[in-house]
């Protein structure tokens, strides 16, 4: 039991006071006596002290003990119990979830405890309500964000949302594809060096252009424009020679009256092709007009001259020749023009890119459902990519099939798809001894009707919508009839299909709205607020100075404390030397894989662009940096941003652990590694390790980049030389 000094004092005090009181009484009594009486008392009491002195002391001792007991009880009830109650209450103040106080002591104390418990209970309920509301609200917000993100991902237009610093906080799949085309390093980074969460839009657009557009928006709002609908439009060229039409809408908080901008939304269209087609057409039209005017002028003048009755024969011949010359020149011009523009004569109907196999499968399903007739599709080149309006085309096929089934007594139907030059033939075939063209009259030009569904289009309209053709053929020798659609192949490369089950890449982070560098030096910024490029290289060996070379760079990004798996850099590099057999089991890169890949001098600028404005992170990064450093001269690229090493940071966090290789750290921190020793696989693992290290560093008081770099430098491992 703890020794309580105050309790001791409180218990001894009454005895001491009683002793002092008695002594004082004795002294006062003695002072009232004259010397003779004092001597008499002394003589009477003196001999008794020795024999009876213990009695008054014992009497006092009993009184003192009783008083001490009473004082102790009073102390426990009125000092110790309230103090304990106060302590317990303080715990309640600090921790909402702390248990109720246990009632102790007298009735009053128990009453007080109950009252405090009541108050705590009310507060707890309030707190729980609040927490529930907050959770509901944030779940609602999160759902809305996810819905918005999903919606954006499916939009057919490129969308980019930025905060006022020009940092990208949302972009959609289309935008990513657009920027992949704009990228001058389409291989490794795939546009991720231009567009990425937290990246600056000013890497793509001139800052002044955006500022001008924002001013335009502000002016319109100042003139009384509706803030919700005002937008600015501009067209701009990009360094890679693309022409973008941009529509900018401001983002402002909805609540307040005249709220300030918090960011802006950009809608982007790549109008390069469109613009070129337009200007080519304009140019052709203008040339044709002017050339025709000149020709007609010559002809008209010559014809006018021929009206003169008194022309000599050779003059007449000369003017006839002029007319003949000009007529043939005009025909030649028109022929050339027609040949040049036939590809351009598009109906401007938006066609989608579709795999031939998918189109045929859908058509077969539809026809079988409509006619109840089996459709064979064995002669189909399913690998063709077509540019089609699949709905209208399948409707046309279904319409023709149902007419064929009615008119020809349910013949076997067959669909065939094959490439024909730079177009494709899509045939609907049935067995028929003779063509019976009178039966087919009007099928191609009449409005399509299948069951109750009547379409405003005819089969011919559908063909023309594809800038294609449709016709009927009969093969007498095989006794087959067929309708043949001539369809365009998909232009360019079909967009990479998204495989189901893909995790949706991180395309948005609205927390960046509030993010601002605040003008602080990088070293003073919190580790959580910094954007990182986490990277790893694979090399032919360990000795860059002795001719070993980089053969792969893999990297990923961390922005706002989130790993962006969708924004990776993955590039094989031609080392322009042999790859030692012994190293192949480590990195799995064979010589054939790097043949034809860009050299390090081409890859470094792309990687620098990808890593711009970020802090570099790597595992045992000094090794990678040495390789990069040796290539500064040949590539003209320097990496002068700060660098963090997960190996050193791990040794800061766990100084007593023996191993700090990536597997060991990952195991310690509960990170599972997949794709070890591939560029991106290692980079992703390192990034996850780094994210786990951040809170551990925080516990050690390492909050800023500067502190982290300092601590890493001091760590044991940094003193070793690699």
């Amino acid at each position, binding site marked *: 039991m703890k020794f309580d000094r105050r309790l001791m004092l409180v218990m001894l005090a009454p005895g001491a006071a009683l002793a002092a009181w008695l002594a004082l009484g004795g002294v006062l009594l003695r002072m009232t006596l004259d010397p003779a009486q004092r001597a008499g008392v002394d003589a009477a009491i003196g001999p008794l002290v020795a024999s009876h002195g213990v009695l008054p002391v014992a009497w006092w001792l009993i009184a003192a003990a009783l008083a001490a007991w009473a004082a102790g009880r009073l102390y426990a009830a009125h000092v110790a119990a309230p103090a304990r109650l106060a302590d317990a209450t303080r715990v309640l103040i600090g921790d909402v979830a702390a248990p109720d106080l246990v009632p102790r002591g007298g009735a009053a104390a128990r009453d007080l405890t109950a009252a405090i418990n009541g108050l705590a209970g009310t507060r707890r309920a309030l707190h729980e309500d609040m927490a529930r509301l907050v959770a509901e609200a944030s779940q609602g917000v999160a759902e809305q964000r996810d819905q918005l993100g999903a919606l954006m991902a499916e939009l057919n237009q490129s969308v980019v949302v930025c905060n006022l610093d020009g940092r990208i906080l949302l972009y959609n799949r289309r935008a990513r594809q657009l920027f992949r085309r704009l990228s001058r390093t389409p291989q490794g980074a795939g546009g991720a060096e231009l567009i990425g969460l937290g990246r600056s839009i000013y890497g793509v657009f001139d800052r002044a252009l955006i500022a001008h557009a924002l001013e335009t928006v502000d002016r319109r709002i100042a003139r009384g424009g509706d803030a919700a609908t005002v937008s600015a439009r501009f067209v701009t060229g990009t360094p890679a020679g693309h022409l973008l039409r941009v529509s900018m809408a401001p983002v402002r908080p909805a609540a307040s009256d005249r709220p300030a901008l918090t960011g802006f939304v950009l809608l982007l269209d790549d109008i390069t092709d469109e613009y070129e087609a337009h200007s080519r057409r304009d140019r052709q039209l203008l040339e044709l007009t002017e050339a025709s005017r000149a020709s007609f002028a010559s002809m008209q003048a010559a014809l*006018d001259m021929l009206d003169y009755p008194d022309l000599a024969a050779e003059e007449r011949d000369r*003017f006839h020749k002029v007319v003949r010359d*000009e007529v043939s020149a005009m025909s030649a011009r028109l022929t050339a023009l027609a040949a040049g523009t036939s590809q351009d004569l598009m109906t401007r109907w938006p066609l989608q890119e579709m795999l031939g196999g998918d189109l045929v499968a859908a058509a077969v399903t539809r026809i079988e459902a409509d006619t109840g007739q089996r459709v064979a599709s064995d002669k189909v080149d399913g690998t063709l990519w077509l540019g089609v309006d699949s709905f209208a085309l399948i409707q046309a096929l279904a319409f023709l099939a149902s007419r064929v089934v009615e008119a020809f007594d349910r013949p076997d139907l067959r669909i065939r798809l094959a490439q024909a030059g730079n177009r494709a033939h899509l045939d609907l075939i049935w067995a028929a001894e003779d063509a019976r063209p009178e039966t087919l009259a009007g099928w191609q030009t009449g409005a399509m009707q299948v069951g109750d569904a009547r379409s405003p289009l005819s089969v011919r309209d559908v063909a023309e919508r594809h800038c294609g053709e449709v016709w009927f053929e009969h093969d007498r020798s095989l006794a087959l009839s067929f309708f043949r659609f001539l369809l365009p192949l998909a232009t360019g490369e079909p967009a990479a299909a998204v495989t189901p089950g893909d995790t949706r890449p991180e395309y948005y982070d609205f927390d960046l709205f509030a993010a601002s560098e605040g003008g602080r030096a990088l070293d003073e910024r919190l580790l959580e607020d910094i954007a990182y490029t986490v990277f790893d290289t694979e090399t032919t060996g360990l000795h860059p100075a002795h001719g070993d070379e980089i053969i792969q760079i893999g990297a990923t990004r961390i922005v706002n404390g989130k790993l962006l798996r969708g924004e990776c850099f993955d590039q094989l590099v031609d080392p322009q030397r042999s790859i030692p057999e012994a190293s192949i089991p480590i990195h799995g890169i064979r010589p054939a894989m790097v043949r034809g890949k860009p050299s390090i001098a081409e890859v470094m600028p792309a990687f620098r662009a990808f890593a711009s404005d970020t802090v570099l992170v790597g595992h045992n990064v000094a090794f990678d940096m040495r390789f990069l450093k040796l290539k500064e001269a040949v590539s003209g690229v320097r990496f002068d941003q700060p660098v963090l090493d997960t190996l050193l940071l791990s040794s800061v966090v766990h100084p007593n652990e023996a191993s700090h290789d990536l597997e060991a750290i990952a195991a310690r921190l509960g990170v599972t590694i997949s794709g070890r020793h591939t560029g991106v696989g290692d980079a992703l693992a390192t990034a996850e390790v780094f994210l786990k290290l951040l809170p551990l560093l925080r516990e050690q008081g390492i909050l800023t980049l500067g502190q982290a770099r300092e601590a890493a430098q001091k760590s044991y491992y940094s003193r070793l030389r690699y």
Partner: protein
Amino acid sequence: MSFKVLIADDEPNIVVSLEFMMKREGYEVLVARDGRQALEAIRRERPQLVLLDAMMPGMSGFDVCEAVRADGAVRDTRILMLTAKGRDTDVARGVGVGADAYMTKPFSTRDLMQKVRDMLA
């Protein structure tokens, strides 16, 4: 006295008819095949009227017109621009650089002759 008329056009098929027409009207006819030749002929021969095509290789009709108006010696040469450029912006440019008249191809020869006679009157 007979007027001197310069026909400046790179299209031989129109020159044939214009030359025939002007000669028949009794004018002395000079022919230039491009802008540079035309400017030289104007300075050397001092024609009263130039039928000037706007689109010629090398120096365009617009350039010739500007040069003529800037040259004190030949500034007063009357210029009739005959061109296949029919947009109103082209007409504005022709008048702006100092053409006295502007005819868009194709034209009726009767109108052209009337205009030529008016300009030489």
